């Protein structure tokens, strides 16, 4: 376990030094979600939210509703981006040396996701927390629920990142996953619009993104004062997703290693 943690921390540090040298990157990573958030917020201004079909959305808390969506989204988006960035290890030849070492592949991928989750979303997180604090009167939070939901959501984001990282390692041609997973995740997970009002086919698509469940649980406990009893189905599904993601990641890592040893594609870029 000590060895595993060493590798996770070393990988996180390496990625931090590799990609977050220039402080401007934090600004750029914040700017785009911020603009997108503002666009969504002012789009809602055109509608009468008091007549909203969603019980817990009103004109008073729409800002917090969207902020939670964008904060969570920045977590999940950052891990997908981290996986995409990790594929550059193949080009620089360093992936070969990672595979040459006996280090746990899960620990390496986790370290990469961990670094990205916190570094890519830290400014958005701070901004969101400050804005929510400023609008705290619109919160209707269940503290116990929040304490339970938060770690579940962070673990889920991390494992989603590790899983996507593992998929990206399969071959140099997996970049298409980035296109498939990034934008659709924002659209179908209910970041801007609640999943509840989606048509059936879109609801079906939203089911495949863990972010959907994380957002639903987070919004329920922060805006609707929902206790654990009310959101138990969402929490159980989230825990199930965590277990499935972990298993899928371990299997993918095994398949990837077997595949690269068979095809030798670790040296192709």
């Amino acid at each position, binding site marked *: 376990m000590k060895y595993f943690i060493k590798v996770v921390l070393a990988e996180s540090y390496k990625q931090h*030094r590799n990609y977050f040298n220039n402080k401007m990157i934090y600004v750029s990573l914040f700017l785009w979600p911020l603009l997108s958030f503002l666009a969504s917020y002012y789009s809602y201004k055109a509608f009468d939210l008091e007549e909203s079909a969603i019980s817990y959305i009103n004109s008073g808390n729409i800002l917090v509703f969207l902020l939670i969506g964008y904060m969570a989204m920045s977590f999940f988006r950052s891990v997908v981006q981290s996986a995409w960035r990790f594929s550059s290890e193949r080009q620089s030849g360093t992936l*070969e040396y990672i*595979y040459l070492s006996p280090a746990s592949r899960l620990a390496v991928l986790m370290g990469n996701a961990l670094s990205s989750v916190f570094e890519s979303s830290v400014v958005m997180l701070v901004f969101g927390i400050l804005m929510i604090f400023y609008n705290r009167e619109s919160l209707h939070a269940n503290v116990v629920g929040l304490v339970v939901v938060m770690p579940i959501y962070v673990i889920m984001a991390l494992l989603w990142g590790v899983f996507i990282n593992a998929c990206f390692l399969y071959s140099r041609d997996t970049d298409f996953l980035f296109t498939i997973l990034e934008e659709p995740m924002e659209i179908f997970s209910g970041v801007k619009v609640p999943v509840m009002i989606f048509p059936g086919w879109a609801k079906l698509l939203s089911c495949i993104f863990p972010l959907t469940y994380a957002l639903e649980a987070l919004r329920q406990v922060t805006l609707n004062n929902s206790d654990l009893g009310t959101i138990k189905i969402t929490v159980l599904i989230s825990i199930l997703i965590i277990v499935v993601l972990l298993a899928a990641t371990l299997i993918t890592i095994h398949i990837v290693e077997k595949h690269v040893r068979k095809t*030798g594609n670790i040296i192709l870029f």
Partner: protein
Amino acid sequence: MIEIKNLQKVYDVKRRQSFFHMTREKVVAVKDISMRIDKGQIVGLLGINGAGKTTTIKMLTTLIEPTNGTYSFDGIDAIANPDLVKRQINMIAGGERMIYWRLTAYENLWYYGQLYGIDNTLLKKRIEKLLQIVGLEDKADLPVETYSKGMKQRLQIARGLINDPKYIFLDEPTIGLDAVVTQDLHKEIRSLAKDQGKGILLTSHYLSEVEELCDYIYLVNKGELVIEGTKKELTDYVFARNRYVFSVRGMDKKIVCRLRDNLRMIDPESEVLFEDGSCTIISKAELSSAIAEFALKEKLVINELHKQEPSLEQAVIKLSKNLERKDTQIA
């Protein structure tokens, strides 16, 4: 000891025939290679015509799984247990890739050290020692992107030693380096084998490097072993005849003719070639004393007389030409 027997690697390669149609074909990268690396020994792997050197090294480092054959690593079945092998090996490749340019040398070594789970106190000491060995201790805290090619290559050497491996695989380690840096690296490689008892496999395009460093050489062609042996055994095998260089003051065609007649009495198949005022004599027989006696008898002043030892380079070029000729005849 590392011992591979009849190692083979066949790739299943997809070939696009049209947008919707793909066919698969088998590509044999390594047909049949057997070799052995002992501790404290530097073994050279030379190749001709896409020989499969890199695939062989990747199989030895467990990065690629062989299709057939056996691989024994200090008695461990390395194909079935690659994780047991990884701790005890490392690879050093030439070029500027494979290190993190934005990180400092210290950070690079620290990162790779963590991948091997090395205790932090021991790792710190080892990094300092390695940086000293490769002469980068003063630049340890500078980003690698500010390094020269030679410095990056020296860092690669330090990285390859971070886990104190028993066996090291050197894949073109001096490619693109200047003569001074290359000499330093040669010294280091020799010391790793002779002083520290590490087993080393070296591939290089520079035959003089292999000649200088390797105790034993394997020559592969198109995935198959062509010949193996020490440098002497290889050159003796390829150059079955001796070569002498002989020149005297005032050498002319008449002297050469008399020399030829004289030597043909000993070896009728001997050849005497005259060019630029000097003779090259090729013969199966030992002719040193006969040539010297000829000069004395003729009262000639000798400028030069020595037996020419063929270089490994000459041997490989000759062997390569022979193989090409053989291939053409078969075709």
